[in-house]
């Protein structure tokens, strides 16, 4: 009887946990069932072979840096925000094995993306770093080239974690440089060169014209102005907000998830 009560209580607890978790992010439990899974493709965005290769790659990176690098996709978020969903997924037991990590979530229903970071992932993947990463990933998401997008994410995560291991994580003013963009830089150089040269020849052309009609007689003003009257009458004021500069410092901004864990992260649309 006692044993029956125990099973009954455990079943009830598990059911309660399942209901609670489903209200936050419906597919969390599916991922939590296998700790070796680093790719949860509920939206079926990539082929099985691609998924297996990606999972292997993320598992290798995660093991190398003792962290979690995860991809999660779904076709609906069931009334939670992308950030809440990404946070809840990362908080699940399946990914608590290692100290922190990063999860990249894609929701195809509303074309959402979100990063969630936790623990050491908060330090490794700063706000500026995440902005840099999504800048590289988003074009592929928009093209629906999901496998390419996730592999870029894996490459960047590897690079970011390697950099974080040096003690100087990628951040504002210290972001990875891409390949030298010769064509883009050549266009910039040509436009800059042409504009500078145009300004110079315009000045040179102006030097050939020295005849100009005089419009003032200031040269012949003797003794300046003798003020006879000076009055300044206040009429009214208007107010406008101060426009603040957005060029702040780097680092990661954090928030607390529904489970009480401190997360970093960001989200948006593609």
């Amino acid at each position, binding site marked *: 009887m006692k044993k029956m009560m125990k099973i009954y209580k455990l079943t009830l607890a598990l059911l309660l946990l399942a209901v609670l978790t489903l209200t936050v992010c419906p597919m969390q439990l599916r991922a939590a069932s296998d700790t070796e899974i680093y790719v949860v493709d509920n939206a079926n965005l990539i082929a099985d072979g691609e998924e297996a290769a990606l999972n292997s790659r993320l598992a290798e990176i995660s093991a190398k840096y003792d962290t979690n690098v995860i991809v999660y996709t779904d076709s609906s978020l069931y009334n939670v925000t992308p950030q809440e969903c990404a946070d809840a997924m990362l908080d699940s037991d399946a990914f608590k094995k290692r100290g922190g990590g990063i999860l990249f979530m894609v929701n195809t229903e509303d074309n959402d993306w979100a990063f969630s970071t936790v623990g050491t992932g908060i330090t490794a993947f700063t706000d500026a770093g995440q902005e840099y990463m999504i800048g590289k990933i988003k074009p592929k998401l928009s093209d629906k080239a999901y496998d390419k997008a996730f592999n870029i994410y894996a490459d960047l995560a590897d690079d970011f974690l390697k950099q974080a291991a040096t003690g100087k994580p990628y951040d504002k003013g210290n972001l990875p440089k891409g390949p030298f963009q010769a064509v883009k830089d050549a266009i910039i150089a040509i436009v800059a060169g042409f504009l*500078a040269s*145009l300004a110079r020849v315009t000045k*040179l052309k102006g030097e050939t014209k020295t*005849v100009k009609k005089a419009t003032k007689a200031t040269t012949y003003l003797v003794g300046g102005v003798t003020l*006879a009257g*000076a009055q300044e009458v206040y009429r009214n004021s208007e107010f406008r*907000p101060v426009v603040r500069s957005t060029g702040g410092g780097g680092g990661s901004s954090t928030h607390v998830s529904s489970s009480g864990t401190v997360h970093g992260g960001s989200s948006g649309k593609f």
Partner: protein
Amino acid sequence: MANEYKCSSCGGALEFDSKTQKLICPYCGAVHDAAAYDAAAGGAAAQQQAGGSSSWNMQSDNWNVGEDGLLTYVCENCGGEVVGDDTLASTSCPYCDSPIVRASQFSGSLRPDFIIPFKLDKKEAKAKLSRFVSGKKLVPKVFKDQKHIDEVKGVYVPFWVFDADVYGEVTYNATREQNNGGQIEVGHFDVFRSGNMSFRNIPIDASSKMEDDLMDSIEPFNTNEAVPFTPAYLAGYMADKYDVSPQEGFVRADERIKKSVEEAMRNTVKGFNTATPVASNISMMQGQAKYALYPVWILNTTWQGKHYRFAMNGQTGKFVGDLPYDKSAYKRQLFSFAGIVSAIVFGALFLLWLI
């Protein structure tokens, strides 16, 4: 009456020398003081100056009016015929180069109040033109190398010189911005200024033969070096009497004065971010026009069928004139410099990427 300035020693034609500010005989080297020469001549020229004749009598000064309206004069030195228009006041005989001054053009009310004598000579004017074009990269090389200048004339240009005492009132809509507890407070004010200003010796070209903008561009002249007029200063130079009335000249002077008053008043409005004039009242309290002759070197040249005129202030040496520019030199400069800057920018971008 036409004066031919002859040397009392050898009878040669005297010329006013800008270096010594004296009348010099280029033949025997005799030197004469300009004012003293006119006074000592005591003849027709001096009589004309003192006579106060307010009208120009063409018959009495030995100039004949031709059918085409042009005036002719027979040079007393060589018998050659000199032709001029009714504003001609000083010239030289085209055959023997004798200076000829029509003193009657400057008698009575036509007499200038003062003159600024030439300080720089023809040689300096030519050298100045050479320096003027040499540094200009877009001026055609052929033009720079061209030694031929069609004409270099030393001309006493008639000017109306205005003095004016002015009272001005200007009202501005002004704004002042200040940070007030995280917000920008923009205060609106009515700003009023009134004041007095004095302008002295504003020169306005009084010859319709001279382009106003060319004459404006060689300003200013230093009136501290002005001397009372005497015809001897004109010997060896061209001169015209005015054919722009003082009333016409005043219109231009008034425009310039008004703009300067508005600018001077605006400079007294301080501590505001913006100040837009909404009303102004500028009135002349006292105005006076003087008649003066100012020294100007005029250089004419022709290039590719187009005429170019340059002017040099004969007192200060300020040289002006619109130059031709070479379109192929323009393109060459544009593309070569663009290529150099582009290469530097590209190299800098590559270095930035490497760092």
